């Protein structure tokens, strides 16, 4: 096998070399100037052909791939993204079309011929001023639109937002929901134990942890129409919560808490209808290289149609504390279980 490959490569080199030799002999035979002139003409035509065929191919490809692209944004903020993306693509598309056309057209139009005299034109301050100012103005507009959306997307989450914590580890997502108290308790990385405390919840120090639900299957349950605030963390290396359908993404950094919030607008069931795909599922991708399992670090998002539906699901979940410690007598954690604690003094502890 490797001999065949070696032979093929050798043959390839020989062929190349022969082409080179043949072309050199042909040039000598036909006369160098003549060959140069005809090659010049050929290249000019090829450049023009490249422009026309390239533009056609780009358009054709665009049309053919549209059905494989993302469906409509599933978050309200993502809609802003979509319209801004569209505006930017139209604008850059126009610039792309004009500049590429000029480049290849000039190349074709001003190809060297016997008669042509190049036009000595070293500078023109007015022109240069013009194409400094116009891009500057266009960029200023883009910056303004961009920053308006940026500040919208990064603004503090509304108080009514559902709070969920999502923590990356090699190589899956851990998701924690607050229990009846509506608050997440403190975590401490030194308390992490893969057997019974994957997030290192500090049960002794913070009773708010007692009713927290931890989901290790990477399933994020949220509610259509209700803003959701994700508290993002990492146990080991940097990960990234990628939510392509919601047009969001945020790094999960060990030692630092990051957040994003958005308002889901399309439930999973609705999206199945929109995409005409009964298997449709919102996915969470890890978007920051995190090791050998990076490509398989998959989570999912279930967007419930109503709060009731979500509550129904939530009722079926068992707090982590109950699963791991409550029924075991040797438990090191306090015995009083799952009493909702609302201590507003400790409210900022999560930060």
């Amino acid at each position: 096998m490797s001999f065949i490959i070696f032979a093929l490569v050798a043959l390839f080199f020989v062929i190349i070399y022969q082409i080179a030799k043949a072309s050199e002999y042909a040039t000598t035979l036909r006369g160098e100037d003549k060959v140069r002139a005809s090659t010049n003409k050929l290249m000019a035509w090829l450049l023009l052909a490249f422009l026309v065929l390239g533009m056609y191919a780009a358009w054709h490809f665009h049309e053919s791939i549209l059905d494989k692209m993302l469906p409509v944004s599933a978050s309200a903020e993502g809609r802003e993204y979509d319209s801004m993306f569209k505006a930017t693509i139209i604008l850059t598309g126009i610039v792309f079309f004009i500049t590429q056309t000029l480049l290849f057209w000039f190349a074709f139009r001003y190809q060297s011929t016997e008669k042509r005299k190049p036009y000595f034109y070293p500078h023109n301050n007015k022109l240069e001023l013009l194409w400094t100012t116009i891009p500057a103005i266009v960029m200023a507009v883009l910056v303004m639109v961009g920053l308006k959306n940026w500040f919208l997307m990064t603004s503090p989450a509304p108080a009514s937002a559902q709070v969920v914590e999502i923590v990356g580890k090699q190589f899956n997502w851990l998701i924690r929901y607050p229990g009846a108290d509506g608050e997440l308790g403190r975590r401490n990385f030194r308390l992490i134990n893969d057997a019974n405390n994957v997030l290192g919840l500090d049960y002794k120090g913070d009773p708010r942890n007692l009713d927290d639900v931890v989901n290790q299957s990477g399933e994020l349950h949220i509610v259509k129409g209700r803003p959701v605030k994700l508290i993002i963390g990492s146990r080991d290396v940097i990960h990234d919560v990628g939510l392509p359908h919601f047009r969001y993404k945020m790094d999960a950094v060990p030692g630092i808490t990051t957040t994003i919030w958005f308002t889901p607008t399309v439930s999973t069931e609705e999206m199945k209808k929109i995409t005409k795909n009964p298997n449709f599922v919102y996915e969470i991708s890890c978007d920051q290289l995190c090791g050998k399992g990076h490509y398989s670090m998959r989570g999912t998002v279930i967007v419930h149609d109503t709060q009731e539906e979500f509550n129904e699901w939530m009722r079926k979940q068992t707090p982590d504390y109950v699963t791991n410690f409550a029924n075991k007598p040797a438990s090191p954690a306090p015995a009083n279980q799952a009493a909702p604690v609302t201590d507003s003094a400790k409210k900022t502890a999560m930060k």
Partner: protein
Amino acid sequence: MSTQNEHIVIDGPNLVHGGTSEVDHNVHPNDRDRHGADDALHGHAHHEPHFIFKYIFSQDHKYIAKQFLITGMVWAIIGALMSVFFRLQLGWPDKNFAILETFLGHWAKGGKLSPEFYYALVTMHGTILIFFVLTAGLSGTFANFLIPLQVGARDMASPFMNMLSYWFFFTASVVMFCSLFVQTGPASGGWTSYPPLSAIREASLGSGTGMDLWLIAMALFVVSTLLGGLNYVSTVLNMRTKGMSMTRLPLTVWALFFTAIIGILSFPVLLSGFVLLIFDRNFGTSFYLSEIFINGRALPHVGGSPILYQHLFWFLGHPEVYIIMLPGMGIASEILSTNSRKPIFGYFAMVISLVGITVLSFLVWAHHMFVSGMSPFLGSIFVLMTLLIAVPSAVKTFNWLTTIWRGKLRFNVPMMFAIGFVSMFISGGLTGIFLGNSALDIHLHDTYFVIAHFHLVMGVSAFMGMFAGIYHWFPKMFGRQMNNTLGYIHFWLTFIGAYLIFWPMHYEGIAGMPRRYFDYSAWESFKQFESLNSFISICAIVTFFAQLIFLVNFFASIWKGKKVTDPNPWGSTTLEWTTPIKPGHGNWPGEIPTVYRWAYDYKDDGNGNDFVPQNVPLREGEEAH
């Protein structure tokens, strides 16, 4: 501003072999009077320098340039071959390729690439092409070759340091090359090597010995870049020939000058980032590490910040993009003007836009970190700065277009690549407007859109610039011409191939497909691109083989190419074409020419020529530029 450097003595080689000045004797008769004393002492004139000092430890900038070029080409083949390997995996994730096992051994048992080695391949592909090829191979080649020849100097300000610069690069290359063969594999944390992944040995196989070697190689590489860069800057500032004011410099020299300045200011920051990383890896410090539980235990580190590394890294990482781009810009300007038989349009605007890019390149780094959780306000500043950098880039593009407008265009091979450069620069540059705008980056970040963007704008277009430069200055380097037919075939395959590879990737990225995935087939959202990925892989493989055409052409032409008979084969105005066809050490046999005019006087010289070289005195009534 002009300096006269005829009296600079080229006695660098003395430093190497203890005071004998044999090496000096291939400098020209005019220079020899300076060495008269030496000649008398040793009584042997006109010796060819010893083989070792001529070809290996050479201090002649032209040889050092060739050393950089050929080392860079070796790396380019290795780096490109890696991309072929991982494209096989991406294109056909469910197939086995025996050839992978042949090349990679136990990393591809049964012809199936292991995920660990896939990540090692993408990491090394990035590292090699960005640093070893498009920084050392590109700047190293053209800054060394062109700066002394185009400013009218006999050599670099410090030929010895210049030699060291190459040998540090060579040592870095050896270390990096060795890292490919260590048992746990080469570094695999991405070319950015973000900690904690790169800092903790348990985090991934490549974070073991491979990462140690990677850091050592990169540290040596930084030293090489600094030695080279200081030399380039001091040569441009101090060693210009009589009449060569800064405003008469060719744009290649301007571009290489700013490239060197960017390198000098940003590489030390990278080095400091790496030193801290070495500390975290080996000495238990916590600069980048905090609250980590890995491999069943909590690490003692607290209080560090992985984001600090990202700031230090991107403070080089972004200017690095311009270190790669600027030489291409300079080369394209030169070649477009020469082959349009027209002056470059807006010389001063071109220089000022280079200044603008240089300054702004230091103020935009955090646009790589919009989704790292940084303060939104800080992010907004970087959005502004990033989109601002589009302005000088636009000015350059429009000036190139105006340069070819109403010219008399000769489509020789370098010209084709220069046109390809501009086309790629436009395509790749425009997508930067999406990524620089944080509200759009928040979706596009770390997707294939990013891959498409930077490959077009700094990968392919920098290569286009590099190829243009090689084809254009090959006659000066080797006294022979490269074959035209092969050159055209190389151009079209590369140009079309690159568009076919990277254009579709934009769509994958818009659809949210993350980069650096080993396999997409388990993902409901990304598996629909399977056939497209195979198509891209086929294009990548064809484009890779097209580069072999170039290699054959290059090496065959060194010995078999058509001999150059005209010392100025392109009808160019710059000084390098006033040297003999094969200039010796010292470049000009007689006195260094005096410069009377700017570098782009493409106009009727009154004798039927359509250009006036820089060393031709002004005619009566002609105004100096």
